[in-house]
């Protein structure tokens, strides 16, 4: 090792010697994770139309079969209508990074929620153990077994403050209005086929949103008749 390299190592080590006391990474991680879960859960609790399901998934990419402007109009109309009434939502999502052509850090989850945007009431629960309740201007977030705290805990966070949190991965669609705006900008909503469930029939639509140069969201929305 050269003298220059030795000096470089010594300088870099010295440059970290003034670490301030009081930095608690574990406590900070717990807070950051709570914010992230609320943000991800709320982003999920966005898309619905009557009985609707939205899925941002790899498989949904395969459903994109061409451009059809009426599909975009139908979905945006249904979403707009949804914002004026209560609704039920089931969301499945998958996220991952692509690095050197390989998929890294895959994560999957399912959330179900009931929302009343007019009265500002909401309740949701997710497969990762997260549950939220929106009432009285506050969001109550519950997690199971948070780090260092066994059992279930509820945290109260002013709902208004959640919209000001920086978006993970540059995704800004944390509210139904923002997601609707993103869907409108997508301009690439296509009919993916018929869909049905207990007591309803409808049509499944596929969409693609590109909120950043290296970020792509794909998914489906089912609109009942």
């Amino acid at each position: 090792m050269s003298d220059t390299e030795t000096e470089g190592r010594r300088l870099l080590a010295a440059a970290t010697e003034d670490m301030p006391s009081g930095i608690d990474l574990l406590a900070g991680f717990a807070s950051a994770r709570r914010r992230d879960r609320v943000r991800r859960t709320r982003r999920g609790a966005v898309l619905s139309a009557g009985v609707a399901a939205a899925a941002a998934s790899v498989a949904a990419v395969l459903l994109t079969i061409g451009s059809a402007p009426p599909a975009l109009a139908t979905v945006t109309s249904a979403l707009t209508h949804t914002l004026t009434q209560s609704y039920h939502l089931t969301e499945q999502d998958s996220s991952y990074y692509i690095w050197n052509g390989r998929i890294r850090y895959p994560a999957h989850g399912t959330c179900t929620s009931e929302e009343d945007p007019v009265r500002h009431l909401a309740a949701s629960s997710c497969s990762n153990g997260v549950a939220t309740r929106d009432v009285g201007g506050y969001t109550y977030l519950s997690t199971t077994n948070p780090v260092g705290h066994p059992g279930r805990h509820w945290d109260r966070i002013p709902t208004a403050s959640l919209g000001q949190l920086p978006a993970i991965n540059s995704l800004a669609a944390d509210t139904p209005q923002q997601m609707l705006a993103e869907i409108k900008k997508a301009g690439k909503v296509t009919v993916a086929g018929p869909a049905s469930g207990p007591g309803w029939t409808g049509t499944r639509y596929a969409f693609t949103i590109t909120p950043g140069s290296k970020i792509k969201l794909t998914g489906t929305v089912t609109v009942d008749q």
Partner: protein
Amino acid sequence: MADIDERFAAYVRDRGEHHLRAAVLLTGEWHAAEDLVQESLVKLYRAWPKLRADGDPDAYLRRIMVNTRRSWWRARWRREAPDGELPETVIADFADGQALAAEVRQALQALPRQQRAVLVLRYYVDLPEAEVADLLGCSPGTVKTRAHRGLLSLRGNLGEDRHERHGN
């Protein structure tokens, strides 16, 4: 779930400070370093169940940190154009450890971003050139060149600053 949480908590207790120190060399400031590590830990935690027992969380976290830092830098560059000059700071006593730490970080921040990353990963994290190259998406030869130039620039920046301050 509880088992995973506890394993993750143990990992953060064991290795968090090491990554925090590397982060401050990348960001230049402790509060920014803390933010970077926290955000990276949240991302790591999402992948935690997928990490095999013999996986290397350090390698995952380093990659996440480098990528997160890169995305931060891209978001900031439109607003902040680097001018390549050291910020003016009065450092009363060079012999003081804290002053030295701050001075070296300032000199580090004056380096081009990629050069700085190479120095931190190569000489602080102590990764081999090939691994640094893989992390930063460049060739080992480029790592070697940037490391060499970076060390000379770092020494030059510190030397000029000392020279001006002491009026020699």
